[in-house]
């Protein structure tokens, strides 16, 4: 049962981190586009880069969670 709780914690905390981080990045992008609609293309490119960087560690946690699930489950 500890194992189930541990897996739940891994995935839950990863989701919280990714959600808050992505939300911050996208909200700033929307604000930037609202201030200057011509900058939309450049800001969208930067947004995708930022999303990928922010989601890196939560995704690593998810991958490790799946590996543990496969090996110990």
């Amino acid at each position: 049962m500890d194992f189930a709780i541990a897996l739940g914690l891994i995935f839950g905390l990863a989701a919280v981190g990714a959600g808050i981080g992505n939300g911050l990045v996208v909200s700033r992008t929307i604000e930037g586009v609202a201030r200057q609609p011509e900058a939309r293309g450049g800001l969208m490119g930067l947004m995708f880069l930022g999303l990928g960087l922010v989601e890196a560690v939560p995704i690593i946690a998810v991958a490790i969670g799946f590996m543990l699930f496969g090996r110990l489950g």
Partner: protein
Amino acid sequence: MEHYSPIVQFAGLRFDVPVVLMTILTSVLVFIVVMLCTRNMTTGVPKGKQNFFEWVIDFIRGIAGQFMDAKTSTKFVTLALTLFLYIFIGNQLGVMANFTVEHSEPIPSLGITQEVINEHGHEVEHDGHMEKTLGVAWFKSPTASPSVTFGLALMVLLYAHYLGIKKDAGSYVKHWFQPHPLMFILHVMEEFIIKPLTLPLRLFGNIFAGEVLIAFLLAGSVAVVSLPLIVWLGYSVFVGAVQAYIFTTLTLVYISQKVVDDH
């Protein structure tokens, strides 16, 4: 969901057979795509495939131009283009097709021996008696294996260091101690721990987690799971493209940190 990967020993090294086959397949596919796009090139107004490929090259050149001046960026466009195409096509291969082959007979040349079937296989009803079969995932993304992503990332990082040393060994050593000698600890942590771990693990984690979820959804019943599966496959295509873009961009950033003097 837990699929076994057969391993073959060769010259003292262990090779993961499906990953090796998929790496070769990805390289062949990249070569074919580029070759088809650059047939009968014209120097006039480009049409069709050549137009598309010129757009891809322009895209990569734009990324390189963000971090380096025009003269140095042209030296690295080929590397960035190759990385981008390889990672992009590699990521999409796992989304396009995902099948498992059940082996009940050993095939020693591929690394499926009888001990492996007995140890990792599961019991299956076959012609009225129970038999051990082994489920092997033969077709998956090469980037879903950590070895491939670590190989790509370490190659890129060592290349960046090599470029820095080749350009000017003195200022390369001085950079470890800029702007304050105590920053040496942070630089060591950055160069030996953070960069070599986050760069490959980011790509590996995204693609591996996506594939595990695809396998997970494929195991469900058709009525419940079709719509989430379609949505998740679409999202995986997008994630594959974004991760290729991020890997290429970070490669160019790390190279530019060593090659461009920005003081």
